[in-house]
């Protein structure tokens, strides 16, 4: 059990990785040390991240048409020593989970050593890969990862439709190689209008492979995906309406056979179905947590609210904790939650959704407007324009 003191009490990580927020009374009973954070007279500081995404390389030969990092074959790796310093800083902040990404992290010979280093700091390391560069020998070095997620955008031609090349069989091979090495595997599934119809089959496929999780990701217009093509790839409104019933049916079909997760950006797309914000918050459902429970460290060591942010970096001066508190780019995210305009301002889901995906908003509106693909936002706009 690992506690992290908070203003409200503490976050506590229990043995299976579940995070539990407890009040001060229970925190004290759990022997969490008395902390200045519990002095209500002190001004409140920004929440510290629970999870941070760390870019370890810009190198990747896949050339996916929608790569949010615009990774290339000639991209640079971040030196191990720099990453170790970053991990030291994140551990000092009390971060629980670090997710390594790229580029293609598997191209690094020291990927397993990075996981081992993170474990030594009591961080939970995870990583996402396309599977390129994965060999049985490499897989055997990855035992310190809590989970490795393999990108797999679908059966039935879905993968090729999303990424521009058919890497489905390579992803399957990578998943099997990892499982053979005893590594827990999940699949990352970027959802677009081209592969939406294959979602249920893809989850069945993932379960048959032995994956323990499928993470469904909204397609986001960052990097090479920030183009006009985005409009032809994002879900249609009919698909958005069908998404919640589809996810519910998939969850019911599989029970505990496989875990299904949706990413922060997908939450607003489900807003017609989700109603009880208090219950969603109680069970850890997160919308846009950029700059709050989620952060990203980019290849140059700069901090961002999430790894899709491509604006100018926050200055990499001072400790990570100092920068987390004061970086203007992070404050921009936080302010956009505090000062949400209508219809978010009066939306009952606001405390969970937090205004929707800023990456989508910025691409489509030029700023952090309410998520223009959220059904509630679309309905509000229709009503306003009919007046």
């Amino acid at each position: 059990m690992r506690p992290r003191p908070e203003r409200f009490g503490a976050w506590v990580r229990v043995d299976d990785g579940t995070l539990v927020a407890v009040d001060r009374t229970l925190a004290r009973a759990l022997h969490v040390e008395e902390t200045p954070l519990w002095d209500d007279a002190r001004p409140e500081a920004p929440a510290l991240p629970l999870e941070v995404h760390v870019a370890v390389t810009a190198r990747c030969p896949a050339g996916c048409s929608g790569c949010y990092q615009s990774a290339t074959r000639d991209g640079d790796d971040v030196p191990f020593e720099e990453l170790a310093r970053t991990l030291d800083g994140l551990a000092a902040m009390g971060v629980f989970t670090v997710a390594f990404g790229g580029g293609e992290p598997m191209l690094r010979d020291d990927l397993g050593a990075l996981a081992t280093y993170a474990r030594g700091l009591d961080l939970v390391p995870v990583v996402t890969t396309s599977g390129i560069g994965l060999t049985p020998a490499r897989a055997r070095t990855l035992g310190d990862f809590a989970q490795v997620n393999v990108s797999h955008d679908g059966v039935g031609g879905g993968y090729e439709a999303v990424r521009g090349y058919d890497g489905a069989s390579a992803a399957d091979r990578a998943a099997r190689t990892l499982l053979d090495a005893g590594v827990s595997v999940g699949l990352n599934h970027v959802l677009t209008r081209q592969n939406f119809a294959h979602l249920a089959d893809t989850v069945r496929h993932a379960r048959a492979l032995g994956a323990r999780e499928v993470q469904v990701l909204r397609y986001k217009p960052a990097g090479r995906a920030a183009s006009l093509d985005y409009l032809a790839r994002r879900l249609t409104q009919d698909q958005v309406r069908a998404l919640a019933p589809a996810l519910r049916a998939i969850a019911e079909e599989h029970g505990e056979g496989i875990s299904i997760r949706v990413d922060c950006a997908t939450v607003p797309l489900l807003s017609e179905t989700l109603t009880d914000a208090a219950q969603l918050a109680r069970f850890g459902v997160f919308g846009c947590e950029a700059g709050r429970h989620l952060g990203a460290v980019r290849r140059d060591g700069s901090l961002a609210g999430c790894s899709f942010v491509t604006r100018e970096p926050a200055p990499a001066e001072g400790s990570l904790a100092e920068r987390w508190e004061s970086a203007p780019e992070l404050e921009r995210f936080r302010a956009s939650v505090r000062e949400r305009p209508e219809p978010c301002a009066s939306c009952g889901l606001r405390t969970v959704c937090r205004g929707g995906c800023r990456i989508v908003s910025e691409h489509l509106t030029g700023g952090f407007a309410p998520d223009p693909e959220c059904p509630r936002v679309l309905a509000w706009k229709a009503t306003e324009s009919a007046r």
Partner: protein
Amino acid sequence: MTHDEVQSHILAVRRGPGANCSSIGSAVEMLFLSATAGVAIVAAVSAALRPHDDEDPPAETPPVEAPPAPPSADP
């Protein structure tokens, strides 16, 4: 603290960790959770959290070794 008391001090439960490097995820079963299932989850978590010093009775004070009997005055 009893299980019920522990549960009353739990503010949120978040299943994790996800393993995606670009966005933070939430378990779908938590999106569509019934009230009964929610109670079961909190109960399970409270069992993992229950402070041990209240759960187990304090260990008994080890018996002090009896002093050696004084030498008998009896012959």
